[in-house]
């Protein structure tokens, strides 16, 4: 299932001119790098889990790190690619009101919705930052024998959500006539 998952390319509206356009260009580079890293993380998680089966079933090697590592990789991929997905308007919402509201009112509605999402993501990012600093200072690890450091996934969440909020802010600030 991938209900409502198709990207609507007609709705891509990042700024492309002026200072905002320049900032967006830099952010595009960061987004693309993180998208590649996310793709590699998902592929790596697949390989790790495949190795878990091969190691246990054919080579008789028992280990306990694969599930946690693949969890870290997949959570990292989810948050690291959040801004890239947002730039393509891939985080889906209900757009039913656009069919009933006059275009001028609908533009304001869209802008306010973007602003609300941006405020939430910035706040969430701040809470992730608190979690990250706590995990770093207290040297927190997962409870397993492997004991992986928790600052790793928390840092992906923090920076992923911060970038997402930044991308949303650019989309809120982008003048519609300049948006592409």
């Amino acid at each position: 299932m991938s209900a409502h998952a198709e990207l609507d390319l007609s709705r891509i509206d990042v700024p492309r001119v002026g200072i905002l356009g320049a900032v967006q260009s830099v952010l595009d580079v960061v987004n693309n790098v993180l998208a590649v890293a996310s793709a590699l993380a998902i592929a790596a998680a697949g390989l790790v889990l495949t190795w878990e089966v091969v190691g246990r079933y054919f080579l008789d090697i028992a280990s306990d790190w694969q599930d946690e590592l693949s969890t870290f990789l997949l959570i990292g991929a989810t948050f690291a690619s959040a801004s890239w997905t947002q730039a393509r308007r891939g985080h889906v919402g209900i757009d039913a009101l656009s069919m009933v509201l006059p275009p001028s009112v609908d533009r304001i509605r869209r802008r306010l919705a973007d602003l609300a999402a941006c405020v939430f993501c910035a706040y969430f990012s701040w809470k992730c930052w608190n979690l990250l600093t706590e995990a770093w200072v207290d040297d927190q690890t997962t409870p397993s024998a492997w004991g992986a450091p928790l600052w790793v996934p928390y840092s992906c969440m923090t920076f992923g959500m911060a970038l997402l909020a930044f991308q949303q802010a650019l989309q809120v600030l982008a003048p519609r006539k300049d948006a592409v």
Partner: protein
Amino acid sequence: MTTLQLGLLYAGSTVAALFSGIPIAFALGGVATVFMMIFMPAASVDTIAQNVYEELASITLLTIPLFILKGAAIGKSRAGKDLYDALHTWLGRVPGGLGVAVVLACGLFAAMAGSSPATCSAIGSSGIPEMRRRGYSPGFAAGLVAAGGTLGILLPPSIVLILYAVASEQSLGRLFLAGLGPGLLLVALFASYAVFQWRREFKHAQSVAYGGGAHSPILADEHFTMAERMVALPRVLPFLLLLTGVMVALYGGIATPSETAGLGAVMALVLVGIVYRAYKLADLRPIFEGTIGESGMLLMIIGMSLLYSYVMSYLHISQSAAEAIVGLHLSKWLLLTAILLLVVMLGFFLPPVSIILMTAPIILPPLRAAGFDLIWFGVVMAVVMEMGLIHPPVGLNLFVINRIAPDIGLGPVIRGTIPFVLLMAVGVVILSLVPGIAMWLPNAVYK
């Protein structure tokens, strides 16, 4: 404030946030966070990030990106067309065989790719033009593919069933097995309708031809030689082996569901690389772009939906709502009907992931109290949500079909899907009368 007032405020705020156009994930997360700030102890809001992390750090949930990668690898290749072509050559002599081949190809492809839109797109892009070339009416051809595509959320590895397993704390292995019988039931219903409708269109074309009108291509006799049939097989066999290999790994005790997801994704990439030589960056790029876009969006919704459910539970909204439903003392089947109608209505606006995670804490306790098996209900709920994929206003498959065959128009596509919505309703009734269709296999395997 009473729990009832709080619940109404929570529901009202959610509807307002969702309809404002805020992306679903952030609307749910935002509403949950505001309610935490106002109605929960001050320290609780400090835990939102940890809550989301702990909910997402579930190895069952994290099978989703890997199943999506497997689906994207197969969906972006020519596997769909090859599968449909092969089935067409083997079913050429069956009345309406082309339509039956499309339904079977959709079922098999959905089981390999696990995605409804990907199934519609892969089978429809070659199947719809071919059916129209052979004289099938456009609405019938489009409806067949749109409905066949919905099998993706019922047949394993359905992401909807994975989420339901997490939300209802049921065994994923049992749910996957329980989806097979109803999946085959729907394949049989759709294929029967394909034969029935083909006969109607054939007879109509015959009467037109006898009356001196145009000779429709639907009247043409088709025949494939054994050599043509055998030639079609080699490209399809590796993917059928992947399909069975994944099932054997899962149910043969070789791999856990998460390992199966990883193994399936890697095997799909390797197969696509070998069979279609899709190993260059240009080939891999759309596969991975599709995967990170879809899985990132879905996991963000899932993480925030779980935060939303946590707040609902902390404030006793879900428990009170569940108790109120139980207190209505509805008859077993009236309760089921009311809940399924609610799911249908939510399906007008929300994707299945949100419906499951938002409603599970409220609807599952009354269903359990009424004596329903939650594995069975999960499958029935999936069938009902399949309807949401092909009925207006937001039936995703309708729009996928409209994109790959824009000249048909949305109206004929919608009219073409109506018989299939009715067939799914018939399927739900049959599953209610004969629950063994869903439960026989999991009960036999997990004794």
